[in-house]
């Protein structure tokens, strides 16, 4: 078994209003940043896990996304990477 670090990005679905993103967009404008458009606020999750291979780690991480890390009603997820961990 080897150790891996899976990096997951969870974002509000485009069809779902993201009031946090709107508030951040407004605040950036107030700070004088010109041209700030849509902002969306999501969440990054890193999971350290043991698996036989990187593919097995990836498969495990995807299952974690489906079952817990993201809510399919409101959020989309991307498994950004699975890399060996010390």
């Amino acid at each position, binding site marked *: 078994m080897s150790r891996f670090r899976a990096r997951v990005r969870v974002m509000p679905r485009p069809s*779902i*209003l993201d009031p*946090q993103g709107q508030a951040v967009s407004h605040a950036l404008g107030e700070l004088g940043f010109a041209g700030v458009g849509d902002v969306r606020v999501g969440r990054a999750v890193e999971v350290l896990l043991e698996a036989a291979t990187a593919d097995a780690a990836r498969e495990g991480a995807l299952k974690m996304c489906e079952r*817990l*890390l993201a*809510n399919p*009603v*409101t959020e989309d997820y991307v498994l950004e990477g699975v890399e060996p961990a010390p």
Partner: protein
Amino acid sequence: MKVAVVRFPGSNCDADALHAAAAAGAETTYVWHRSADLGGADVVVLPGGFCYGDYLRPGAIARFSPVMRAVAAHAAAGRPVLGICNGFQVLCEARLLPGALARNAGLSFVCRPVTIRVESDATPFTARYARGQVLRMPVAHGDGRYVADPDTLDRLEREERVVFRYVGGNPNGAMRDIAGITNEGRNVVGLMPHPERAADALLGSEDGAAMFALAGVAAGV
């Protein structure tokens, strides 16, 4: 009739819910979330609060508590389950109700009385209300904006499974002003407002009391 109020770490409306059920004449008991059974209860209430500190998403972790298997079995057997506020969030995360509760549109935690209309009297918790009846009770939540995909919303409306709707102002931006819904079997109800905080004249409203006085639920049924 025996009512079980489930306590998760972070539940904070458990005593209020138990009190409201007792005041309605029920035998009452608390059930700790690590319990695998419901103590022979006829009715289960998942109370308000912030179980597991709302980590990840409200209700996301509570869904895996051992008691939720018993709650799911109770629901699958057609027996009554009521989720209030955080309890509604848990029921959605557990897929016992469709949709999800997202961050309030205005971002602020909203804690004030609201007006809701009873849209369905076909659930055990609303059988004592009249359809169209208007109730006054508080909300207290930061994540109460009901969301679902358009097909689910259409289906809920078509099947008359929207149980409560906000009227005269929507406190959280909920889609189609939805404050509470029920499952296909009409035995699982979730709502964001707090009927247990409006179950006694001393609290400023008694409109929620009837939600705990279940008609036609006898012991062992």
